[in-house]
């Protein structure tokens, strides 16, 4: 069911096309393509995205103090079951969301990378807490920020973040999955140019990271 879908250019062109289509003076093959792009694709993609977004199966994965707050989102007050995410799966084969709750040490980094590889697509990762996103309070030899070795979808700030903050992070991930991602703070405050350029350029460092050399293991 390979669906050919050329990118729609800008808004104005789409509006004019829609008006022609409504007035019926869109040429045949244009009409054909127009309908094909509109009707068929959006429903399949949106339906799949809607299903995935609303039924994330998180992995029972806790590292350190943030795991305590992660447990709290399952408890009674900030109940994750309201959004349908309460089925915590223990095995990476059945989970599609890994919440890195805690500090990632250089001994744990390859383990997390392996669990991430063993999770089945589509899969997302939330890096919860300051230690995971940016080595937080412990900027030292023993820690690795998570996005050095894993593609992270949502960073939840806080040390540890409140359960409601993690809940907000998961809901923001749901919006991201369903296509209408809320724009980040850079777009909202048009602060482009402040992107942190990593020393080795690409944000997703490859899986083979040289984490075991002494002394300069900083930043892995």
């Amino acid at each position, binding site marked *: 069911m390979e669906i050919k879908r050329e990118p729609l250019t800008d808004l104005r062109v789409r509006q004019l096309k829609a008006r022609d289509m409504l007035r019926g003076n869109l040429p045949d093959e244009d009409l054909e393509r127009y309908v094909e792009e509109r009707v068929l694709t959006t429903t399949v993609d949106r339906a799949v995205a809607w299903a995935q977004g609303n039924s994330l199966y998180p992995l029972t994965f806790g590292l350190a103090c943030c795991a305590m707050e992660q447990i709290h989102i399952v408890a009674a007050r900030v109940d994750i079951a309201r959004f349908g995410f309460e089925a915590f799966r223990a095995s990476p084969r059945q989970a599609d969301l890994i919440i890195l709750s805690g500090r990632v040490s250089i001994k744990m980094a390859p383990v997390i990378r392996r669990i991430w590889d063993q999770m089945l697509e589509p899969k997302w990762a939330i890096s919860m807490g300051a230690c995971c996103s940016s*080595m937080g309070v412990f*900027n030292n*030899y023993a820690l690795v920020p998570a996005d050095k070795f894993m593609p992270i979808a949502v960073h939840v700030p806080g040390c540890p973040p409140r359960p409601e903050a993690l809940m907000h992070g998961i809901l923001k991930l749901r919006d991201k999955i369903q296509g209408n991602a809320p724009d980040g703070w850079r777009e909202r405050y048009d602060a482009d140019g402040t992107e942190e350029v990593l020393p080795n350029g690409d944000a997703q460092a490859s899986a083979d990271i040289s984490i075991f050399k002494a002394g300069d293991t900083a930043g892995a």
Partner: protein
Amino acid sequence: MPDATELELTAQELRDADSESVLDTEFYRGRAVLVANPTKIRAVLEHLRGKGYTFLASLHGVDYYPDEPRLGVLYEMLDRTRVDRIAVKARVSTDHARIESVVDMFPGANFPEREVYDMFGVVFDGHPDMRRILMPEDYEGHPQRRDFPVGGEPVLFTYNEEQSYGKYV
């Protein structure tokens, strides 16, 4: 806590048994410390155990960086009947960082000794499983030593962007 005089008595007893087993005694803020000769550490601990200090509360390493001999191994002993605490300190230098293990006397010292080896590089002779416990198995260097860099990434501010860009602290 044993007060200063009792500390001196204990030190004197140890010296009678073996002249150079106790090098020095320190008494500061109610804490009695016996500075023992690293080669005689087992005899000192055995003697203290005889006196009633049967519980080895803690065993940890300290790096006295500027003054030699640099690496210190501290044993916090506890006498549970009289609720007394006394500490024994053994100082070893970095190039000859070896000391006898006390795991057969205090089985609870197994993990702490491995941690002191892992963090400071003090090898405990006679330890059943002398391997690193906290760092990855093949990690070179002993992180807790004072000359080991704290590591971590330099926080990139606009003012130090150029000089600290890509370098590691």
